Structure formats: structure tokens, C-alpha cells
């Protein structure tokens, strides 16, 4: 078994070695400005998006934006929120998104780094916050983004509280960002955590889930590694009131989750039909 463990560790190191070090200078405001019209069209015509409450985000200075993550490997709500943030505050305001190692290491997704995507780890987040940037994090990550569609309105970070410690150490407020619609872009049947363990990608690739879904154009879609064509689900995002990090970690974590759950519940209550909105 030592041999297998060695191979897993070797493979893990190979993946880690390919994750680019965070370079905040890779964010390119002019590139973002060029891409905003296309993103805006997608948001308007395809996802019929609606973003509210951006005025609740502090007008300047570092802030940790904490969202619920939806949509498998094609998280439409992330694109819509990035568009909204850059439109509202201008592309000049530094804004970074923490993404899974595989996302920033995947050569075909290199352009995401120009939008401000950096590998999700505490060092990168701290670096961005110390530089005065707004940082978007999805604590639920690959665990939450792959939840079954019938749990689409449930906030589930899987107990990950690292974001609270991060905000406390950086001395920045947490602003919850609630969204609905993303988990209706495909029919997610399950996280496939047993499959992740079986394939050992939980140890090699830090993937806790290998989602099983019904999605275009594949039909039965296992892993979603190639992404999918999202259904044109209506995406609605609402920024919640800022939360100061002045209690213990569990209390702040509970407050953030409660705020997000209330926001998602409110937005879900406005929906009459899945996908259509």
C-alpha cells in the first residue's frame, strides 16, 4: 500500500506544481472591459439575469465577498456577478475570484486569470486583500457546486470556515452574495463523493466530488470535466448586508450562512418555475 500512497503523493505534487503562483498583475482591466459587452449580452439574453444590492458592498477598500456556488463546472452566477461588480465599481477597482486549482491550472481557461481568478488558498486571498482588493470566495467550492438540483436552495459549505479566519486576520468585512438559478442549468443528480474516493481524485486533485448530472450536450454527464452547455436558467443575485468579524469563528460562520440562506430563500420564493424563473 506504501507504493500506492507514494504514487498518489507524486501525482498530487505534479498537479500542485502546475498550479500557477498567484500573480495579481495577471488581472487585466482592459481585457475585462473588452469582454464586458459579450458577458452582458449573455447575461441579458440567455440568463435574463438580475443583480441587486451592489450598494451594500463597501465603496472602496478590501472586502471578502462570500457566495453560494452553483452550476457545476459552468457556474453562470460567477460570470454574472463578475460582470455586475466590474460594471458597478468599474474595471479599475481590483477584484479577484478564488478558483479551484484545476480551474487556474487548465490551459484552456488561462483567460480567467485576466478576469482576476487566482488559485483558492489562504496565501493568495491574503495577498489580494492586503493589496486592497475585493475578493470573491465560494467556501462550498466543488462540494457545494455539485449538490443535487433538489437541494439547489440550500446553503451547504460543508463546514468550511477558513474564510472567517481569513477575514479576521485581514481585518476586512464579509459581504454575503446570495444567488439562485445556477443549479438549474443542468439536472444535478448527486455529488458522486464515493466516485471521487474510488478514483482517488479527492487526494490527487483535491476534488471532493465527481458530480453526476444530466446535461447538454452529453446526456449523462459524469465529472463535468469538459463542462456542459447550461440551460438558460434565470440567474438572480442579491448582495446582503456586510458582516463584521467580531465573534468567534463558529458564530460568524453561522451568521454568514444564515444571511445567505435567508437571501436565497427570499429569491427562491420569487421563482414560479425552475429554469424559467
Amino acid at each position, binding site marked *: 500500500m506504501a507504493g500506492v500512497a507514494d504514487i498518489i503523493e507524486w501525482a498530487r505534487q505534479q498537479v500542485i506544481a502546475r498550479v500557477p503562483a498567484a500573480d495579481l498583475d495577471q488581472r487585466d482591466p482592459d481585457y475585462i*472591459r473588452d469582454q464586458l*459587452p*459579450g458577458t452582458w449580452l449573455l447575461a441579458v439574453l440567455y440568463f435574463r439575469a438580475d443583480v441587486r444590492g451592489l450598494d451594500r458592498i463597501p465603496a472602496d477598500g478590501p472586502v471578502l465577498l462570500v457566495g453560494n456556488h452553483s452550476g457545476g463546472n459552468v457556474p453562470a452566477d460567477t460570470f454574472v456577478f463578475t460582470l455586475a461588480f466590474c460594471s458597478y465599481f468599474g474595471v479599475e477597482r481590483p477584484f479577484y475570484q478564488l478558483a479551484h486549482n484545476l480551474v487556474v491550472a487548465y490551459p484552456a481557461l488561462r483567460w480567467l486569470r485576466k478576469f482576476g481568478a487566482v488559485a483558492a488558498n489562504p496565501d493568495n486571498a491574503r495577498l489580494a486583500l492586503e493589496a486592497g482588493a475585493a475578493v470573491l470566495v465560494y467556501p462550498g467550492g466543488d462540494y457545494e457546486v455539485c449538490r443535487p438540483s433538489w437541494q439547489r436552495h440550500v446553503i451547504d459549505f460543508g463546514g468550511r470556515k477558513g474564510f472567517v479566519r481569513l477575514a479576521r486576520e485581514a481585518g476586512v468585512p464579509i459581504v454575503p452574495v446570495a444567488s439562485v438559478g445556477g443549479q438549474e442549468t443542468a439536472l444535478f443528480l448527486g455529488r458522486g463523493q464515493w466516485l471521487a474516493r474510488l478514483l482517488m481524485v479527492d487526494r490527487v486533485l483535491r476534488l471532493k466530488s465527481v458530480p453526476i448530472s444530466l446535461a447538454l450536450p452529453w446526456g449523462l454527464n459524469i465529472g463535468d470535466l469538459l463542462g456542459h452547455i447550461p440551460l438558460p436558467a434565470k440567474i438572480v443575485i442579491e448582495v446582503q448586508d456586510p458582516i463584521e468579524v467580531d465573534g468567534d469563528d463558529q458564530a460568524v460562520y453561522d451568521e454568514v450562512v444564515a444571511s445567505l440562506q435567508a437571501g436565497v430563500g427570499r429569491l427562491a420564493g420569487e421563482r414560479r418555475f425552475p429554469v424559467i424563473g
Partner: protein
Amino acid sequence: MRVERRLVVNADRNAVWKVLSDPACYPSFLAYLERWETITEGPPGVGSRYTVLWKIGPVPVGGIAEVVEFDKARDLAWINITGVTQRGRVRLRDAGPGRTLVTLRLSYHSDGGVLGLIADRVAARQVGRSLAESLKNLRSLVEF
């Protein structure tokens, strides 16, 4: 892309200008306004800057606008120095005794090549609606 809407109001130019030259009045009549903040200090005039964002489609669109023309009771023009490239103008002209023709004009251009052109065209309808509603709101303010 250039969008223009006109409206005749039952008030003289000075009465309309009194509203237009007061930055505090803008949130009262600009339709779909999402954010309005005065950046510069002092009385409004050429060089005054404001953060102006309209909700066009799903998200607020705009940026920092700088007043480039401030001709009392005649013309007020601005350009955007951040955000979507934009020029705007309000023209006041006599339309008979005690009446004023108000023209609200917006020229804008998104970056991004062909997608930018398509986005400009798609947005034009809502921009036009926003201008028309703003003029109606202005009329209700000056005619009370």
C-alpha cells in the same frame, strides 16, 4: 449608438435649468438610476464629476461622468471618463411663451468589437425608455 428623446414642458427655460443645475435633483428624475454620487466639491459647473450608474438590463452600467459644458439655461453636456464610453447632453430651447423643448441625448459605445456593437444595439431600446421616462419625471418636477 446615439439615442435621443424630446419633450415640451410647460415651464420656462430658467425653471427647467434650476432643476438641471442642481445635482441633488438628479436622483428624483433620472429613471432606472442605480447610483448617483457627487465626487467633486463646490458648485456644479464644467469639471464637476459624478458617479452615475443606470440599470440597463441585469446590471448597472455607467461610470464617472464629467461635466464638459455648462451653458446656463441652454446646454449641459458630459462625458464618461470611466465605464462605457459615453457622451450626454441636455438641450433647452424655447417652445413658445412659458414653454421649453427639452432634448436628452446619449451617445455611447461599448468596447469589445462586434459583441460591443450588438450589445449597444440591444441596449438602445432600454436606454431610449430610460431617457423618455427621465424626461417625463423632469416635466412633473418643473410643472408641479
